[in-house]
């Protein structure tokens, strides 16, 4: 998923660097007011975990492998702004220290992995949760779809970049079809892993999942096996959460 140098022309890579810089600046701006002192260290932890998880390539058959991108996971756990910053740290370290993703292609990889993946993942997660009236039972489905959509969006972004500036004469529509095709398989795995981790964290500490809000009062949440409707967690549209004292009983 990391684009090496040479695949995409330098002008398009430079344009992507501008897009990435804009996205990172936006993330810095909207993280100017963190909900609490725990948000920053948790974002740092997410960066470390995503770095580790991206080292684990899983085989998807036909001599091909994939690894977790983690953009949707990061956004669900710490919110989209801190997720963009965490993914930026990961992608920059990978390019500079591990030669994973080209140096000239850094703007492309930041755009695809650090901006598109967490933003699309978060939008899909929140949309599904809103449709499901914030039911806890919907969390695995929402997280799974978010992970899958984030990977497909990343593959689509690469396809667009190749169409704009691919250095090889190969038909860009063939590249798009093949890239999105193989990443729909990788995306399924991404969705499953994202859902498993989000559900596990939610089960241990509801207050650590920024994307999950309190279920609507008119909704009776059944069979989620998780914290239920009375966990005392509430949310505001700004992504800030308030954890009431009743929450401490869970720990």
């Amino acid at each position, binding site marked *: 998923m990391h684009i090496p140098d*040479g695949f995409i022309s330098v002008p398009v890579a430079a344009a992507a660097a501008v897009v990435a810089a804009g996205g990172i600046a936006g993330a810095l701006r909207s993280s100017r007011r963190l909900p609490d*002192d*725990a948000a*920053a260290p948790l*974002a*740092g932890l997410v960066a470390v975990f995503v770095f*580790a998880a991206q080292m684990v*390539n899983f085989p998807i058959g036909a001599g091909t*492998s994939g690894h977790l991108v983690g953009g949707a996971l990061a956004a669900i756990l710490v919110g989209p702004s801190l997720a963009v910053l965490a993914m930026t740290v990961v992608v920059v370290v990978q390019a500079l220290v591990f030669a994973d993703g080209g140096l000239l292609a850094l703007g492309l990889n930041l755009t695809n992995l650090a901006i598109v993946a967490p933003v699309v993942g978060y939008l899909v997660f929140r949309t599904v949760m809103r449709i499901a009236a914030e039911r806890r039972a919907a969390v695995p489905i929402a997280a799974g779809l978010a992970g899958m959509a984030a990977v497909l969006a990343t593959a689509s972004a690469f396809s667009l970049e190749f169409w704009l500036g691919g250095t090889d004469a190969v038909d860009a529509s063939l590249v798009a079809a093949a890239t999105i095709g193989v990443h729909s398989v990788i995306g399924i795995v991404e969705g499953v892993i994202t859902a498993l981790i989000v559900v596990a964290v939610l089960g241990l500490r509801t207050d650590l999942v920024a994307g999950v809000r309190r279920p609507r009062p008119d909704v009776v949440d059944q069979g989620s096996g998780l914290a239920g409707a009375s966990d005392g967690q509430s949310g505001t549209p700004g992504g800030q959460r308030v954890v009431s004292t009743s929450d401490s009983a869970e720990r």
Partner: protein
Amino acid sequence: MSMEWLGQRQRGVAVVVLAGLVLSILVTTVLAPLASSDPDGLERVAEDLGFADSEAQSATADSALADYALGGVSDEGWSTRGAGLIGLVVTAGVGFVVFSAVRRRSAGHDRAR
């Protein structure tokens, strides 16, 4: 913002971070050496459609840690583990600098109000 809830999530965040770091170390040392060395999705597409040879070497390709292998370590598993652990430390270090700055600025913003 009442002070009452501020401590709620704060309390135990050190434990959460510690547990997450241990989990990340386990992923790096146990799972990463087992990782598939098959080409990833993008590399596969590039090979199949014949544009893999348009790849140019990154300026950092000579890094002692390039491709998640610790230079000079012949054992593949330990080479991966070593490179991965260094990667965790570097990511944690860069993350600490970035997110400390974000937190300081956020705190300053609150005080300014």
